């Protein structure tokens, strides 16, 4: 690379600028009088750039005749001219230009005095990345590598509050007072603390069905919107509060806290807790009932109810509603303790002992009719008593169905058909008997000859006999209708068909025939405050509870007392065969049907109850065992 100096008078002034450690500049200038200078990493170049990004000989710089500076890459690497990457370029020195090779910049311009080309070389990049200024507190930490803690903390706070607080409140505000929400996702359902009970599944997307007002606890009128029929009061609230007694100690404290937090006592939801999983409502625990009913008379002094706390050892004798006078649609009843051996006149005469006897006429008749009616060696309860549709109680005994197999009311036979006195209609009985005697003749005496064979009478010799017979018969025919009165009297009197079973009222006048039948009423249910299902006791014989075989009068009340029940049933926590909580026979919201515990057991088990804790301990299991595993058919309603 030899260049002759002075030729053409062209000169390049190369000024290398270096920085001192204090930041001041050192300028080193060299003058090259030649046509062309070279740029490169090699120290032989006129412009020596100790830069690894630059080739040993990278480019050439020449000045053409016009005075312009031509820069041309002599290697395969480009360079930058005024910020653009090129392999060749022209600079007007009067206007100046900037070349960049690697980390170096060469400013090209014109020297005002000598009109030579000035190339000012300056390193603008540190020779390595590590040589640059570094903030040690930052580079050695995770700063910048992860989203900052502050940023993500605020991000999460905003996200959670927006999604889980603002959105649900917006939903609540949107659907205030709306009867039914549309079927879609509602943000406030994310506030639900657990699944609703099976009965309330349909409300699971409609929080406001129960939670009507913000910050107001669920009130009873929300429940009563739907429960118009089945949520009647157990007892007036004031009486309940009296029987509950003053709360003491911690319970009182809890009550006060609840009131402070706007949770008034005695609301439906105190017992009917929700969001406890998709089970059914649990039957009431014995303790809950006992809180009021144990020793209640000391607090609620005017109560007619007797104290009860545990079926096994603290429950009064049964007081069935005993009918005091039969007749009418609603015969009067009175609750009498079974300890007082109540009797009940139902208007019938019926000795159970006679009918259930293994010997004697009734049994004999039963055996004779066994082929026709399926009787056994002697009569049994089921031969006359028919269960009702639900097998819970019994249908009333019906004369035609249950008595007439033996107690026939037939009085006439016409062509093989028996005519019966109409049961329950004394007027028709009288009319039928009168009609019978009016329309029939007495038996024709044989000596007058039978109707079909009148030409051949068998008679005693002598006309006088014939005449007497004829006149006797004529009188008999004439007075035949008056025989009806006799028959009517007979049927309503001792030994007559009516009198056998019914009380009979005498005619109003001595010669009258207007006999009447005393009214009959059969009690279908004695225990209206408790539930008893015969079906649940199918494994037991009738006699194990009802002492019918020795009862000689229909007025004997054949109900078993509490001691009979206690042979199997004990209190909720007892070790009896069937531990029984109050809820097995009673309901808090009692109605005519079976208690909730029984109804719940009989429901088809689609979703199993998550927790049996609240059910009386061991109760359902033991009942099931006693009933040979048949549990779902315990009773109807």
């Amino acid at each position, binding site marked *: 690379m030899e260049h002759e100096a002075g030729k053409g008078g062209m000169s390049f002034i190369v000024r290398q600028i270096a920085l001192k450690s204090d930041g001041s500049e050192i300028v080193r200038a060299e003058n090259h009088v030649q046509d062309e200078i070279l740029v490169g990493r090699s120290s032989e170049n006129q412009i020596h750039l*100790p830069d690894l990004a630059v080739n040993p000989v990278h480019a050439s710089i020449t000045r053409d005749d016009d005075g312009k500076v031509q820069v041309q890459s002599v290697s395969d690497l480009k360079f930058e001219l005024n910020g653009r990457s090129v392999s060749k370029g022209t600079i007007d020195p009067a206007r100046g230009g900037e070349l960049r090779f690697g980390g170096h910049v060469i400013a090209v311009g014109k020297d005002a005095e000598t009109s030579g080309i000035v190339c000012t070389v300056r390193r603008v990049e540190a020779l390595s*990345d590590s*040589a640059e200024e570094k903030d040690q507190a930052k580079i050695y930490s995770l700063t910048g590598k992860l989203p900052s803690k502050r940023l993500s903390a605020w*991000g999460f*706070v905003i996200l959670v509050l927006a999604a889980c607080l603002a959105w649900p409140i917006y939903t609540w505000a949107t659907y205030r007072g709306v009867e039914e929400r549309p079927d879609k996702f509602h943000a406030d359902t*994310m506030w639900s603390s657990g699944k609703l009970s099976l009965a309330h599944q349909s409300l699971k997307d409609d*929080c406001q069905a129960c939670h009507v007002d913000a*910050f107001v606890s669920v009130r009873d009128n929300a429940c009563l919107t739907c429960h118009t029929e089945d949520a009647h009061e157990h007892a007036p609230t004031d009486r309940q509060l009296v029987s509950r007694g003053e709360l003491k100690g911690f319970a009182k404290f809890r009550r006060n806290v609840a009131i402070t937090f706007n949770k008034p006592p005695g609301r439906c939801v105190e017992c009917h807790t929700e969001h406890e999983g998709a089970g059914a409502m649990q039957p009431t*625990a014995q303790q809950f009932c006992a809180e009021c009913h144990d020793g209640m008379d000391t607090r609620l002094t005017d109560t007619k109810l007797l104290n009860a706390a545990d079926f096994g050892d603290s429950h009064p004798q049964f007081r069935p509603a005993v009918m005091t006078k039969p007749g009418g649609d609603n015969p009067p009843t009175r609750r009498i303790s079974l300890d007082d051996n109540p009797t009940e006149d139902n208007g019938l005469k019926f000795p159970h002992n006679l009918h259930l006897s293994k010997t004697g006429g009734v049994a004999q008749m039963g055996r004779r009719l066994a082929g026709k009616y399926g009787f056994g060696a002697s009569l049994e309860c089921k031969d006359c008593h028919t269960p009702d549709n639900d097998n819970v109680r019994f249908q009333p005994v019906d004369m035609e169905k249950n008595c007439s197999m033996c107690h026939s009311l037939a009085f006439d036979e016409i062509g093989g058909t028996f005519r019966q006195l109409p049961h329950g209609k004394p007027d028709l009985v009288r009319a039928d008997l009168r009609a019978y005697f009016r329309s029939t003749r007495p038996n024709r005496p044989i000596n007058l000859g039978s109707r079909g064979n009148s030409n051949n009478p068998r008679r005693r010799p002598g006309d006088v006999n014939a005449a007497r017979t004829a006149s006797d018969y004529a009188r008999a025919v004439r007075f035949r209708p008056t025989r009806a009165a006799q028959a009517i009297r007979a049927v309503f009197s001792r030994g007559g068909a009516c009198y056998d079973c019914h009380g009979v009222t005498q005619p109003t006048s001595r010669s009258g025939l207007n006999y009447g039948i005393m009214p009959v009423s059969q009690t279908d249910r004695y225990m209206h405050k408790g539930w008893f299902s015969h079906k649940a006791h199918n494994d037991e014989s009738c006699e194990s509870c009802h002492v019918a075989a020795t009862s000689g009068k229909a007025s004997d009340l054949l109900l078993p007392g509490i001691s009979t029940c206690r042979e199997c049933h004990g209190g909720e926590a007892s070790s009896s065969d069937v531990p029984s909580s109050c809820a097995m026979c009673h309901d808090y919201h009692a109605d005519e049907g079976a208690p909730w515990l029984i109804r719940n057991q009989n429901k088809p088990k689609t979703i199993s109850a998550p927790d049996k804790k609240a059910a009386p301990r061991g109760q359902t299991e033991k009942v099931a065992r006693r009933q040979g595993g048949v549990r779902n058919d315990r009773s109807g309603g």
Partner: protein
Amino acid sequence: MASLFANLTGPKKRQKTAGRERNSAHDGFLRHAGYRWLKIFVLICLVSIASYFWIDVQPRHNGGSWYGYTLGTIGALLILWLTMLGLRKRAMTAGSWSLKAWTSAHVYLGLSLIVIGTLHTGFQLGWNIHTLAYALMMIVIISGMFGIYLYATQPQKLSSNREEMTETQMIEALRSFDRQLHDAAQPLEPEHAALVQGSLEQDPFSGGFFKRITGKYPGCKTRYAIAELRRARTYAPRTDDNPTEKVEQLLERKEDTMWRLRKHLQIKAMLQVWLYIHVPMTFALIAALSAHIVSVFFYW
């Protein structure tokens, strides 16, 4: 318990000796004051669990019973107090309410929240805000436990890795190697110079979080330059004064320092990373807890 934590938490407590004050300056926060807070932790757990079984809540345990509200209130106040460590740690003091005592209480009371919080739920969990708050609480606690584990294990590794080098010294060493490399590489062919330039230009602190935490930098240009130069030298005729050889040696020494630096960064990242979960999740938890409490009273 004591032996389990003994090697994690510094020297064992000195036996009491007559006439000498017990020096607890080197006790870790886990064993502070003779495991005082560990004992309190155990007591809280026992009382909570026993009362859970002893108190009969009908129909079953849930956050809405009086017992549930009690546990919930205790838990919520605990969470707020535990969060206060973030403020408290900025002021180091001594004494029985020293920062160490505070940290010890933070750790053990935080752990007891597992029991208090879980019993508060009554094990009734679902896809709702309440379980979200519980889940966030568990994430915070578990990340905290991870942090304790790291604080117990990593500082030792950190100190054995750096061998008394300070962070400033590490970066100065790199700068020195870079200067030497720059000079030594001047005679190299353009393609070899480019390899060295690559090493010089690469930021030793570059690489994302994943590279930091794993300590694996597959795109390391220094290592690449070494490999390439070594391969080139294998096929080049052997000469006495080959500048490549010197460059290569310098690159290897730089790589050693880089390896140590990266190990250092990895351990430091471990010591910090759990806080990137613990702290934001704490705030997410407080937000969820607020929503949880408001929702309970809103639909009261």
